[in-house]
């Protein structure tokens, strides 16, 4: 995936990796480290929590816990790559796009996900996908990362 991002962005100029809280942040961090090893360039990275941009905030209760958002400076002119663990309905990505627009005007935004499980409710597709999983609406896809969960694992729970 790191190589694909380099190909997509044609190098590391203006590249910025933004992980979606929480597992996406860890994945973005790992991809950035791989790129650093490969290219010898430190790629700036950020974390985005999309809770306050959710389209169902008025109906969920109790209110979801809000994670940290930090982006390195103005996004104008940058090529932002959103990194997340699972792409499903596309609503998280919709929220992330709206939130990023409040931080500037990137020249391009791409999407990189570890797992694409289908089931889209919005016209959103990923540019880079680690693995495509065929799932039914009732299934659950649990991604675990070593930094938070002690191991790297993807479970499909039926």
């Amino acid at each position: 995936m790191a190589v694909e991002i380099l190909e997509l962005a044609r190098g590391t100029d203006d590249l910025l990796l933004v992980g979606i809280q929480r597992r996406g942040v860890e994945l973005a961090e790992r991809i950035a480290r791989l790129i650093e090893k490969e290219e010898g360039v430190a790629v700036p990275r950020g974390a985005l929590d999309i809770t306050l941009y959710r389209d169902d905030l008025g109906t969920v209760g109790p209110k979801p816990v809000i994670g940290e958002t930090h982006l390195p400076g103005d996004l104008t002119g940058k090529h932002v790559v959103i990194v997340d663990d699972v792409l499903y309905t596309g609503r998280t990505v919709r929220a992330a796009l709206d939130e990023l627009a409040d931080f500037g005007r990137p020249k391009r935004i791409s999407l990189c996900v570890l797992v694409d499980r289908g089931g889209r409710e919005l016209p959103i597709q990923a540019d880079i996908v680690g693995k495509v999983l065929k799932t039914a609406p009732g299934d659950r896809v649990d991604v675990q990362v070593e930094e938070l969960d002690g191991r790297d694992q993807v479970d499909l729970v039926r």
Partner: protein
Amino acid sequence: MSLGKDLTGLEHMTAEQIRLILDTAEPFKEVSERPIKKVPALRGKTIVNLFFEASTRTRVSFEFAEKRLSADTVNVAATGSSVSKGETLVDTARNLEAMRIDMVVIRHPSSGAAEFLGNRIASNVINAGDGQHEHPTQALLDLLTIRDKHGKIEGLKVCLVGDVLHSRVARSNLWGLTKLGAEVAVCGPWTLLPRGIEELGVKVFGRIEAAIEWADVLNVLRLQLERMEKGFIPSLREYYRVFGVTPERLERSPRAITIMHPGPMNRGVEIDSRVADGPHSVILDQVTNGVAVRMAVLYLLAGGRAELADAAKGGGGTE
């Protein structure tokens, strides 16, 4: 865990609920640092700020919090509204509700006004200060500021200085601090300390020097000037001489003491200007934190129906 419908005071809240508000305030600090200081969390919600008493800081702070969450807001002041024509509080609120509002932020000179209103209307009610009863969001922002500065609240020694008797800020602080495990003391002239306060487990200092020697944090309350006219203190000059927080007195503190004040300050009465603007002061951090705390309270109280949450969860992944 939720907060329920209204926020009327800290007295009946649990430590977990208070911590939930403080923890939720953390990410909201960052929103006010963004180039576009606005998130769509309360889009479409209508909030009325109903202020029956003068206020700058609290009203502006609530209004910023509401606007940064994208709520629509209306300010109603007692003067110039139908209140001055003799309309009752409940009638005013019911008329506002008939225009389909979602939340009311109320400041009122009568103790218990916020709870009274909360029990009579369907909208969420937030107490922005009621008489001598409570000012919960002020205490919450004080708690957040203490936690920022000291990394914890439990085990800290906090002394409220001055007019504790008439202060709703003091009352809310007392509940909040003790629930979160701080040691609390009060210091001031006997005429301005509530009788029997020791029975709540609160230490009492008659001398400011002793309080400074004991405390990690001094929360210096505003001396309400009308108290002098009513004979609670002989003169402002004497008050400053005996209880004023001065740099000379702070030098005797054995530790890095933190100085707080809820504002508005009477410089040269309860607090010396050199202290208010000095290195120990976190008075402006309190104001900054006020917006974040109020955003957290608005976010946690607004709307939300539990039965829909499960339906929304369904899928998996981060969706």
